[in-house]
């Protein structure tokens, strides 16, 4: 029997998220009452009206009104969004219900790449020089006025979908048409393309938690594979970072300034930055945790022999949303990493071989194939789904990175390309 004061969390879970298991498990471990909100009704919604609710996750204001109605019967103490879109919805609901969260304007600014760039540039945060072009413009005319190399980006697609580098005017025209097609395929209402200078340098990902406007760094990941285009499919994340401590502090300070410039004050942030001779450049900052299954590379506290002594990233996020005490924000002492397995080619996945062999390698902790048999694999930039994830832990980032690469080499994807 639950105590009457057990807090209820509203978890915004789009039906296409990878994060269901991690967040549901986190709520269970913390013993909170969970209500899962999705954009499509669960078949169990009538049977468990307090535990499942349908919200219009594409319309934050409408979702907030729906949540307010729901909360009259089932009072809510916290709300968590798990991705870019639901971060805005969570902000709207938090505002409507007086819960811990971000202002809607701040969450919206983080969600839209052009709005984000504009806010950050105004605040003096180093961002690439950028411009916004309507998709209906003639790319041949635009190409003459753009410095090269540049990067074309949709404003709201995730996972670097539709992000293409152009080195020449010919590249630009081809990339512009391609991004336009991707926007149409994705059903994007926003009919503009962001074009920004390509920033050379190594890329890093910062995972953080905002506590009353103060950014606490939970992890800084190296991305050891160069992300120089023409497409920007991610692969390996390894933490702790091998950047010198001073540069790590500069990266954290840059991310903190970016969050403040956007007006974000509470909850998870995931920032992507490049570092070169000019220092850190803010490429993206999102008011959400790390994507895909990658949070599995993170655990917090000191561990120990008993169940529950490690805290997951999701547990920290849930605790923060509900105002519960957070025992530790310190990541474990071991190095850890994840590889988002690159799409090996276009076609229908028949089989993945070598998984057992990959799992048996030293330091490799898990190989998760998330693509299902007969799933169509779509390479970047049109695609946005990794076929799986590899996790490793070890004494050093170098050893972890080597283990991830070794495991990946063991995998063989059998694809029917007809």
């Amino acid at each position: 029997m639950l105590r009457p004061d057990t807090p209820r969390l509203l978890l915004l879970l789009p039906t296409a998220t990878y994060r269901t298991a991690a967040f549901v498990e986190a709520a269970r471990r913390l013993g909170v009452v969970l209500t899962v909100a999705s954009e499509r009704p669960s078949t169990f919604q009538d049977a468990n009206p307090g535990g499942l609710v349908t919200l219009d996750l594409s319309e934050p204001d409408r979702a907030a009104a729906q949540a307010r109605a729901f909360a009259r019967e089932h009072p809510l103490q916290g709300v968590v969004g798990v991705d870019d879109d639901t971060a805005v919805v969570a902000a709207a609901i938090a505002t409507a219900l007086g819960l811990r969260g971000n202002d809607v304007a701040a969450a919206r600014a983080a969600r839209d790449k052009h709005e984000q760039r504009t806010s950050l540039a105004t605040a003096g945060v180093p961002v690439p020089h950028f411009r916004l072009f309507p998709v209906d413009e003639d790319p041949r005319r635009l190409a003459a006025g753009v410095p090269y190399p540049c990067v074309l980006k949709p404003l709201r697609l995730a996972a670097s979908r539709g992000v293409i580098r152009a080195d020449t005017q010919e590249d630009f025209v081809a990339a512009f048409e391609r991004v336009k097609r991707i926007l149409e395929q994705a059903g994007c209402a926003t009919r503009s393309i962001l074009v920004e200078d390509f920033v050379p340098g190594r890329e890093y990902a910062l995972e953080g938690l905002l506590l009353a406007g103060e950014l606490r760094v939970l992890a800084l990941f190296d991305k050891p594979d160069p992300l120089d285009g023409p497409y920007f499919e991610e692969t390996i994340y390894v933490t702790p970072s091998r950047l010198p401590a001073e540069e790590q502090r500069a990266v954290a300070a840059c991310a903190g300034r970016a969050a403040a410039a956007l007006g974000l004050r509470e909850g998870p942030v995931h920032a992507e930055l490049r570092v070169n001779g000019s220092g850190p450049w803010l490429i993206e900052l999102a008011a959400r945790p790390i994507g895909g299954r990658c949070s599995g590379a993170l655990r917090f506290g000191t561990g120990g022999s008993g169940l529950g002594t490690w805290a997951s990233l999701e547990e920290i996020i849930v605790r923060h949303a509900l105002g519960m005490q957070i025992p530790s924000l310190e990541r474990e002492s071991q190095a850890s990493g994840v590889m988002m397995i690159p799409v090996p080619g276009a076609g229908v996945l028949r089989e993945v071989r070598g998984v057992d062999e990959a799992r048996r390698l030293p330091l490799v902790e898990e190989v998760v194939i998330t693509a299902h048999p007969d799933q169509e694999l779509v390479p970047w930039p049109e695609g946005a789904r990794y076929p799986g994830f590899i996790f490793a832990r070890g004494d050093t980032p170098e050893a972890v990175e080597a283990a991830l690469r070794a495991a990946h080499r063991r995998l063989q994807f059998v694809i029917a390309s007809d």
Partner: protein
Amino acid sequence: MAPADIRITAEPIDTGRCKFVVSEPVHGGGVRRFASPDDASGSPLAEGIFAIPGADVAEVIVSGNLVTVVKRGPAPWQTVGKAVGQVIRAALAGASPAVAPKPVAPATLGADDDTLYERVADLFESQVNPMVARHGGRVELIDVQDAVVMVRMAGGCQGCGMADVTLRQGIEAMLQQHVPDVKGVVDITDHAAGSNPYFAAAKK
């Protein structure tokens, strides 16, 4: 079959739970759940898994060619999994059955699980499966042991991105409401093999 020819695939569910899919049947007598080393006595496979140093195993569930292990220890599955694989191979190569038949329980205990099974089966047939069928799914009741319900998902539920929501917010919630004596639900589905999930995940 020689132990070396037995293929075992480890599929970690989280840091505490891992499923091992074995190329050979491990136990043909339904589901057996071992919640302690005492429970495991007489079943070499479960005895061996509970004895793995540093794993602090809390539970072993065996069904057909699936072995699900729940551990409390911090050792990663990369380490524990190798030991589990060795135990499974050794147990299958042994002279005695790897898993002993389910003992005939004392009348009261057996009646409890049997009664629960019937009630859960009724609930699944009358309510749970008609609901998941709307998404092309099916939930099989595999067994009830010590008031813990073991289920396997199929169809649209197998590999579905929302399977955990279906399990916890749907099935478990209904069991709490209609069969409150049930203490828990364990999903023994091989979700990686699901070829037609109702919801498939994409990054971010």
